[in-house]
């Protein structure tokens, strides 16, 4: 008998049962994929490094005349427990051509590695380990994977010394060492026979050879000491630093984590609503069953079985759907890292099972009230008649709204619980998008300038060649000459101003028995007080210094300690007065007082030349001058402050991509939820729709009324999202920027028009159009259906 009732119920209430099934599918898809994403992101870069078989420490050296002295150091290092070596060749962008033209511009040297000599695992786009490369073919990684002009199937010419090879690009490499946005060296995996042509050439070996050492140790401190003096080390860092180089990828992964959490919230909110909603439909039948003498437990059992059937089918389908959905999201995170977890299947099934349990527990709690209700209460749709709050909140007679608008607004305010899940969903979607928009805008605003250890100027002119001239010069005045030269150009062109540049000096720093090389920021033309410190007081004298928290931690020093700096070959005692905020060198740097007599000729690196015009021009004038300077200086690398921050963070594009992805996901979710909700409403309100038609409402009025309800709901969500925008952005983005090295003090750049109007409007348009299209189904309800209404 029960199975017959169940069968009939599933058949007769097809629409509501299908809607419930769809919501279960949606919930399982979101929850299962989100939990797997969360685990993957939590494992994050460690998973990638582990899969790549990365070592504890990596040294990259360049041979001098074909001789690599690093071998002796590493052999002698007792702390090394395991060492692996890749013999490589270096190349530059000038060595690569396509049809006689430079193939791609890049600054960091590229690395050629024969496939037989790989000492770590390299992955292709499908996260499969690359084990074989065909003759005449290559895989490329690093910066080449993100260059628009590089395509799979391209034939490029590699010219090293006298050797020339035509190579077809077979795919892109996910490279755990050189693939990060901060390294971005374009590695080339080559067929052994092709590589042999290059490796057998003595001239090439003499000029271009080098090695990558992968070292394992149990005593990192000792290892660092033992290999500190390796000459020609282009890169010598432990796995912690390597992890930091991928922080941009982790940043997007972190955003995905936030999206996942939001998806789970949405999934369970919707599920809870749907179960209550569909069960509400069954109250009349429950009443009848009670009236004919069925026990509450039996009735409850019947519904539990029904919901178990639906949720089990939904869970299976949802789990299957979650696999491609999760892959899609994870792949969009990064094309440079392998992200995932080994427990995908187990977690997916477990999540699906949890959703079934949650569905049943929701059902159990919803049917609890059946026990308390008398048969007639149940027949009255669960209402006992004792109601103390009014159903109708607004009054048509007192309202100035049109009938459609009134009915829509009154419905929302009279049944807020019914719309709560939608309000939560739309608000979460809007918050996600606005948070990402705020993050993107902040990454492209001057508000982040302080993170790059620099001061605000009118124009930033990035000229690596000029910096190289200073660094490579024997002339004592090379720095001042370059500055004067640029100032003269400015004056000659009617825009006089002062110029200065931030330089980095690699200075050995000793504290106790720890000795490390630290990149120290210094500018003779600014004051240390112009920069931002998270703790302490800016260095005010020559013998005072500031370090980032990362360096302080590495040294084991604190503010107030005295360290020994080796400047110009002399050891000098300096007091640490502050903890400086800087993301340069992944936060492993410090700041010297401006009066420290360092020679710019000894600088290790430099930033952009900063120009401050004498006449304090407006931003429009600055823009005009930038365009003029681009022509005068024959360089496109002339930026205003926002553009300069953007080039420094180099993450705005990534965040913008993530924002667009989240926008698309949010729109799909909003549309999907709207379709299901509106379809549920039509099903539940069939009697009212028929009545409205009977008293003369046209179908289009009913569609308009239904669409207006969604418009009103989105409006409420928009207001909530606007109110929560800043707290939510701070909550999430503070953590994101903390990952990037900015510990505190971020002031967000919020564009009200974009965040409070454009994005909510996009969601609103999608929701209202979807609601309208779905509401057209109401046309199928005819006035004659009044007779069929219970």
């Amino acid at each position, binding site marked *: 008998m029960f199975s017959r009732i169940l069968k009939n119920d599933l058949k007769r209430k097809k629409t509501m049962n299908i809607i419930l099934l769809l919501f279960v599918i949606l919930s399982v898809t979101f929850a299962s994929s989100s939990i797997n994403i969360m685990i993957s992101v939590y494992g994050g870069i460690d998973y990638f490094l582990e899969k790549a078989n990365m070592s504890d420490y990596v040294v990259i050296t360049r041979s001098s005349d074909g001789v690599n002295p690093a071998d002796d150091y590493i052999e002698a290092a007792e702390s090394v427990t395991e060492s692996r070596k890749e013999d490589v060749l270096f190349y530059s962008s000038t060595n690569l051509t396509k049809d006689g033209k430079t193939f791609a511009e890049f600054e960091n040297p590229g690395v050629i590695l024969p496939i037989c000599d790989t000492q770590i695992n390299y992955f292709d786009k499908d996260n499969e380990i690359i084990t074989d490369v065909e003759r005449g073919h290559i895989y490329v990684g690093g910066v080449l994977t993100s260059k628009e002009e590089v395509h799979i199937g391209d034939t490029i010419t590699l010219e090293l010394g006298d050797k020339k090879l035509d190579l077809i690009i077979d795919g892109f490499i996910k490279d755990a060492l050189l693939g990060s946005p901060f390294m971005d060296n374009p590695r080339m995996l080559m067929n052994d026979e092709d590589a042999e042509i290059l490796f057998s050439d003595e001239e090439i070996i003499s000029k271009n050879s080098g090695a990558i050492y992968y070292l394992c140790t149990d005593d990192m401190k000792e290892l660092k000491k033992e290999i500190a003096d390796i000459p020609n080390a282009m890169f010598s860092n432990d796995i912690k630093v390597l992890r930091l180089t991928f922080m941009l990828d982790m940043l997007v992964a972190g955003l995905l984590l936030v999206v996942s959490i939001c998806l789970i919230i949405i999934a369970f909110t919707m599920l809870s609503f749907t179960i209550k909603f569909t069960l509400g439909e069954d109250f009349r039948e429950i009443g009848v069953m009670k009236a004919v003498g069925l026990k509450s437990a039996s009735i409850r059992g019947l519904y539990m079985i029904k919901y178990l059937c639906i949720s089990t089918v939904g869970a299976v389908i949802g789990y299957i759907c979650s696999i491609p959905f999760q892959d899609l999201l994870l792949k969009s995170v990064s094309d440079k890292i392998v992200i995932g977890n080994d427990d995908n299947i187990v977690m997916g099934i477990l999540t699906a099972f949890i959703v079934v349990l949650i569905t049943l527990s929701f059902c159990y709690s919803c049917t609890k009230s059946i026990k308390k209700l008398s048969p007639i209460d149940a027949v009255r749709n669960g209402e006992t008649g004792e109601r103390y709050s009014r159903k109708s909140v607004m009054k048509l007679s007192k309202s100035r709204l049109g009938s459609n608008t009134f009915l829509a607004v009154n419905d929302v305010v009279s049944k807020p619980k019914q719309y709560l899940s939608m309000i939560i969903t739309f608000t979460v979607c809007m918050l996600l998008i606005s948070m990402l928009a705020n993050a993107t805008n902040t990454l492209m605003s001057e508000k982040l300038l302080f993170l790059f250890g620099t001061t605000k100027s009118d124009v930033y002119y990035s000229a690596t060649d000029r910096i190289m001239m200073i660094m490579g010069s024997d002339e004592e005045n090379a720095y001042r000459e370059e500055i004067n030269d640029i100032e003269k150009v400015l004056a000659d062109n009617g825009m006089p101003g002062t110029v200065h540049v931030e330089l980095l000096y690699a200075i050995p720093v000793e504290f106790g028995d720890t000795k490390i090389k630290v990149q120290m920021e210094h500018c003779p033309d600014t004051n240390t007080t112009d920069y931002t410190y998270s703790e302490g007081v800016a260095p005010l004298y020559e013998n005072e210094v500031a370090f980032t928290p990362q360096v302080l931690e590495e040294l084991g020093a604190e503010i107030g300690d005295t360290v020994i700096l080796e400047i110009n070959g002399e050891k000098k005692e300096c007091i640490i007065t502050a903890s400086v905020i800087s993301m340069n060198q992944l936060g492993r740097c410090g700041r010297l007082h401006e009066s420290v007599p360092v020679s710019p000729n000894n600088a290790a690196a430099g930033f952009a030349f900063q120009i401050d015009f004498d006449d304090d021009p407006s931003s429009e004038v600055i823009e005009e001058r930038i365009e003029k300077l681009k022509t005068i200086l024959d360089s496109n690398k002339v930026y205003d402050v926002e553009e300069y921050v953007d080039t420094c963070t180099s993450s705005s594009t990534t965040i913008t991509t993530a924002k667009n992805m989240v926008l698309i996901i949010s729109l799909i979710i909003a549309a999907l939820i709207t379709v299901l909700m509106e379809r549920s409403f039509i099903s539940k309100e069939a009697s009212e729709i028929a009545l409205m038609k009977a008293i003369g409402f046209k179908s289009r*009025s009913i569609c308009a009324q239904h669409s207006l309800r969604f418009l009103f709901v989105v409006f409420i969500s928009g207001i909530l999202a606007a109110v929560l925008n800043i707290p939510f952005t701070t909550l999430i983005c503070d953590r994101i920027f903390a990952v990037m090295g900015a510990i505190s003090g971020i002031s967000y750049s919020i564009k009200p028009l974009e965040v409070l109007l454009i994005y909510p409007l996009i969601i609103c348009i999608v929701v209202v159009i979807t609601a309208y299209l779905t509401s057209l189904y109401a046309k199928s309800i005819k006035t004659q259906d009044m007779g069929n209404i219970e």
Partner: protein
Amino acid sequence: MSKVIEVKDLCKTYVVNKKQNNVLKNVNFSIDEGEMVAVMGPSGSGKSTLLYTVSGMDKMTAGEVDFNGKDLSKLSENEMSDVRLNEMGFIFQQMYMMKNLTILDNIILPAVKSKKTTESRKETEKRGRSLMHKLGIEETADNDINEVSGGQLQRACICRSMINNPKVIFADEPTGALNRTSSEEVMNELVDLNKEGTTVMLVTHDVKVAAKCTRVIYIVDGGIQGEYDFQTRYTPEELRLRERNLNNWLMEMGW
């Protein structure tokens, strides 16, 4: 008197499980302006179907219904909505109302929707209250629909059907769900309405109800078997006589 409804060869067929069920078979009749016509007949004879088809609530399979000069079979859905809103009033056996509106709001909703008059919302409210006053339910104006009795609710439905001053009120067993007292009150309201000039077509099983009408159409198996014309309008004093005469006629019809 001019004809407000003219039905010609009206047919209505339902197809259930591939079987044709001819509910109405070539029905012909007309209703003059100001008439109050009751449709009677045994269960399943097609009374309600006739009412819904004549009122355009249900589509006819064949035939013609001329309502106030308009051929309902040729009207589009939107035109039909306009006719329902402005020229027809409906009273259902089950007192269907919008759950989220008060009694007064339910009553004035068609007036707010209609563009028939340019009156203000305040004037509409006043008119709604005046109708409620007339039907003796003014005190329920601000109540929710489940806070009033069945009789009050049905009278509210009558108010709603009257709010746009329709030409014809259709009522499907308007007293079917009411007790005797409420039933009498509701019927008296309909009679008063009819006396004021509104045409009424109703379906009923109740001889007492039908006796208050001016004409009775008796329908059997989807066809009109006979019509009984009272010749005069109902007065309370004549009720017994009208009931007796109608009963006798119905007996002849096989009631």
